[in-house]
């Protein structure tokens, strides 16, 4: 699980307008105009929120000339939900320690170099 992705996911979620946009997109694709409709804010303001969601990889916007529907990307949300599940996190941390332990006990041998776990 990429920590930076988690940071941008949680940062993107830390706004009620953006959460409302995500909830709407969870029911299906929508154009920017449709997304803006329920909010008492200008189209550019909504677009700004959408940009944050897009940069965080939670939303993707289609390329079709007029319609350009926005769509929800499920994976980062799922990763965030999984990260919030403590028993999974405990396991991940424990397996980190198992990995460290195994590397320590075999470093004298001609083992292949240690594989990085991301950044």
């Amino acid at each position, binding site marked *: 699980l990429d920590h930076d992705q988690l940071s941008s996911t949680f940062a993107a979620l830390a706004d009620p307008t953006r959460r409302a946009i995500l909830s709407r997109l969870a029911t299906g694709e929508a154009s920017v105009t449709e997304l803006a409709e329920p909010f008492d804010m200008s189209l550019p303001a909504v677009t700004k929120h959408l940009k944050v969601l897009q940069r965080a990889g939670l939303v993707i916007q289609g390329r079709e000339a007029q319609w350009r529907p926005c769509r929800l990307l499920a994976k980062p949300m799922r990763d965030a939900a999984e990260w919030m599940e403590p028993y*999974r996190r405990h396991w991940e941390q424990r397996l980190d320690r198992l990995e460290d332990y195994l590397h320590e006990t075999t470093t004298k041998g001609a083992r*292949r170099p240690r594989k990085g776990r991301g950044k």
Partner: protein
Amino acid sequence: MSSHARSVKHGSFVIERLFNHDPGALFHAWTDPKAKARWFNGPADKWTEEVREMDVRVGGRDRLIGKFVDGSESRFEAQYFDVVPERRLVYTYDMYWQGKKISVSLASIEFVAQGKGSTKLVVTEQHAFLDGYEDGGSRERGTLGLIDNLGIALGGGDTRIPRK
């Protein structure tokens, strides 16, 4: 807590991880008491082991009791249901926090040889959280609190976040 009294909440997840070690080395790390004590424990900076017992065979039991820095006690009690050397471990475990049973889990550990001396470890956990302890007691314990971690994820940059 009253709304949670006698509640049961179910959950499950699968974790897969590839190790550059053969199934034998991995199985040893899981079944040798000295080896397992090196990694199967609480966070080093806030948890101290008090009791550790192991008996890896069908019907055998593990027990691991420890104390967090805030004085709260965690207790893990497991019973093995299937032991296939270098292939599989299936056990159930109860988690207690401060003497209260907070969850009952079924854990299946699979050691899948991948060739070239590497192994895919597949951990499948299915659990029932009891009486509202669906955070495994973290909330009450505070030291591993979800909210702390969430705050960190939102930009605190604390070193407690696992390096991943």
